[in-house]
């Protein structure tokens, strides 16, 4: 009796499963409403709408690995459930914080790339904020290391920058 309205509505069309195929060839089953949050999948499903059986559709996502997809899918699913309810923004923020808090720097970058490719803008915004927070008050070298950026200044230019602006290379926070 506790599972009243929510379970009944979910059991209908939104419960239909779609198969997503990752860059490394794995097939992942997801609810259709989750798949529709991914722009390339949405486009693919619209193009193949005459296909009677959704279960038979396999959406290729050649730019996202299974590892990243398997993190994204539960996030999007829960986020959809949250935003379907009239919840406060605070709760969504807390949920986002919880999701991003323990992400490694590498994972953060991969998720950002995936969120951009998949057009999940609310996640991209959150990840950009987190990245901005992580590079705030940090030294130039930390940022290069953190995001794997090639330093393309000439050694002379670099030496001059270091002499004139040591503060930029020291960083205020502990790296």
């Amino acid at each position, binding site marked *: 009796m506790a599972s009243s309205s929510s379970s009944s509505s979910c059991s209908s069309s939104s419960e239909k499963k779609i198969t997503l195929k990752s*860059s*490394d060839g*794995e097939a*992942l089953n997801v609810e259709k409403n989750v798949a529709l949050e991914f722009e390339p999948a949405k486009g693919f499903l619209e193009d193949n709408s005459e296909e009677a059986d959704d279960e038979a559709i396999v959406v290729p996502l050649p730019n996202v*690995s*299974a*590892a*990243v*997809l*398997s*993190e994204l899918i539960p996030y999007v699913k829960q986020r959809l459930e949250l935003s379907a309810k009239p919840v406060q923004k605070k709760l969504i923020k807390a949920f986002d914080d919880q999701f991003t808090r323990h992400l490694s720097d*590498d*994972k953060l*970058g*991969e998720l*950002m*790339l995936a969120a*951009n490719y998949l057009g999940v803008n609310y996640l*991209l*915004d959150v990840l*950009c*904020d987190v*990245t*901005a*927070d992580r*590079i*705030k*008050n940090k*030294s*130039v070298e930390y*940022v*290069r290391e953190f*995001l*794997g*950026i*090639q*330093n*393309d*200044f000439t050694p002379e230019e670099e030496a001059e*920058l270091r*002499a*004139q*602006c*040591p*503060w*930029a*290379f020291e960083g*205020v926070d502990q790296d």
Partner: protein
Amino acid sequence: MDKQAVAPEGDSGSNTNNSIVHGDILEAILSQVPLIDLASACYVSRSWNRAVFSSLRRVNKIKPWLLLHTQSQRTMAPYLTTAHAYDARSHVWIEIKNNQPSSFDFLLRSSHSTLLYTLSPSKLSFSFDPLHLAWHHVDAPRVWRTDPVVALVGDKVVVAGGACDFEDDPLAVEMYSVDTRAWEICQSMPAVLKDSAASTWLSVAVNSRQLYVTEKYSGITVSFDPSTKGWSGPFHLRQFDHEKKVFYSVITFANDRLIAVGLTGEAEDVKSLKIWQVNIKGGSLEELKEIGEMPKALLEKLKGNKEICSGSGSASLTSVSVTSMGDSVYLNNPSNSEDLVLCEIGECGDDECKWSEIKNVVVDEEDAKIKGRLILTCSSVGIGDLQRALLHENPRSVYFKQIQ
């Protein structure tokens, strides 16, 4: 269902890592990084340098900073000063620290948005760079003044009024050229201001060509042109306010438009705060066009009422000071500076005002009061200004600390 998490993570990571963050994503990230941190982000690489400027141009534009100086209220010099800034682009407060504690032998003052000055019997010191790090020291004007209007018009520092009337002409005007480093005597202020020719009673607005001065309580307004060294006017700023609703008004420039900020009602019961565009034709007032009204909730904050609509909220609002740059107008209640208000004025023709509340963090934590005197100015601060201010070899170099 977490089984897939064992996928070859290192593999996918190392391939893409080098180029993960670029283009729109990088610009989106940088849009969330405070301006003070972007100063060093420029040095990460060439592409980052480009991305920083592109992000500032396209995603999250630079907004003028509110600069807030406090000066200790001791009876004797030196007066210790502190400097803070509010960056509206990044919504952060920043402490601007010098290598040595800065102090002034005379009271720090400002009569309009861009100029800070101190005046002693022998010396006028003024500063008009964005972060007020460079100071010019020149001989004092000939006439001794206690509370003059001091304004920078083009490259001229105009010093008007504020003299002691038993001694000198209280309306005397002198002008210093930053270019030729010489003082010139100018036409005195119009006699209509003879009883109020001190910056306490006057509000000042300046663009690159002219200086406007208005009497805050009467609305009598005059203008000064440095090229002719003469005054025009007066006209009455509130001549169309037939019902005499406005009891107080100040002026400033925003987006190169002369605007007036007025309080209606009475000091004990201020009904509204409105903003008008002031259209002048041939030296007289042609039109006062309303372009905005402060939301009631913000007005109550400005008054210092903690409880909105509590009935007992009856704090008075006797005056408002404005400081502006570009499209940003910062409003402050001099007798309660805990809440400041920012009004961003749209381009000409687009008369939308965007209002926001700014909690002043430069208050003493213990008694939540501001220590000493508060002097507000407004500046366009760019990445280059920050980088120059931070230059190691710069003897006036400062450092910035974000206040959490």
